């Protein structure tokens, strides 16, 4: 059984860290592409902080060396041959996606209301009031997307907006940003935060491009 962490360019050097359970990392190279993996006799990946961090560390170490398509936590394959087949079969797509994330990072943005708003319309006494409260909430969300997302998206190569963010969040989105524009992106997010007293805008990252590791997400926009 092998556990796979990420797909990268063939030139990638083996990351100088260990994998899940302290396993040694291997690099499988295949005609311009490579995958970083570890071999396990028995492995049951559980999303515990230690295991998720081990996965993340490997992905970040690959990213230090070049572009990476992070695989989802828990990706396992039967054999190295199987992994090689995946690289072969999806070669063109993987190369294109790697080119897209090259020299770019993912930034996460969450916008939350500053004051605790009554997000649960459930306390309303009438059906009409409930629906009106819900409608107001939806308008607030749409307005947040317009006021925050659109100016931030101008600085991004691609974006993914979560369509129905869990309350109280009004915007949860990921942005694929050129590494040399991260500072500009943060500055714009800070300016938007200052402009909107009613919102807290939180930027996280830079992350490996988890939300941009597959081609042509419906919601993503390329420029």
């Amino acid at each position: 059984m092998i556990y796979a962490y990420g797909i990268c360019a063939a030139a990638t050097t083996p990351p100088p860290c260990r994998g899940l359970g302290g396993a040694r990392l291997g690099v499988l190279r295949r005609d311009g592409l490579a995958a970083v993996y570890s071999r396990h006799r028995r492995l049951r990946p559980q999303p515990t902080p230690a295991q998720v961090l081990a996965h993340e560390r490997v992905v970040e170490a690959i990213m230090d060396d070049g572009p990476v398509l992070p695989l989802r936590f828990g990706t396992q394959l039967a054999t190295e041959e199987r992994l090689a087949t995946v690289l072969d079969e999806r070669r063109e797509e993987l190369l294109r996606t790697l080119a897209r994330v090259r020299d770019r990072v993912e930034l996460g943005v969450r916008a939350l209301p500053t004051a605790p708003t009554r997000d649960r319309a459930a306390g309303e006494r009438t059906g009409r009031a409930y629906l009106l409260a819900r409608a107001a909430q939806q308008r607030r969300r749409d307005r947040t997307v317009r006021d925050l997302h659109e100016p931030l998206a101008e600085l991004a190569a691609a974006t993914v907006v979560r369509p129905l963010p869990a309350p109280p969040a009004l915007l949860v989105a990921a942005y694929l940003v050129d590494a040399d524009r991260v500072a500009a992106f943060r500055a714009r997010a800070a300016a938007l935060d200052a402009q909107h007293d009613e919102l807290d805008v939180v930027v996280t990252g830079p992350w490996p491009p988890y939300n941009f590791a597959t081609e042509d997400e419906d919601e993503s926009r390329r420029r």
Partner: protein
Amino acid sequence: MRVDADDEDVARGLAQLVLTVVELLRQLMERQAIRRVEAGDLSDDQVERLGLALMALEQRMDELKRDFRMTDEDLNLNLGPLGNLL
């Protein structure tokens, strides 16, 4: 690809899946209801009944989430290339 899982994992995973789909439908119904109210094609009585029904549904959903010890964040499915469901 993973086939071995203990019963508790499976039960929780199934509950999570079912609740996620129910929550998705609930949210879609609510959006549709808001659209119809805003379009003004419902009578006052219809708006009231629709609102009460959706309010009751949300309360019930909150109870189910509590019973299964799940948060809104748990009720999400990553659909891979399609992104997140909720």
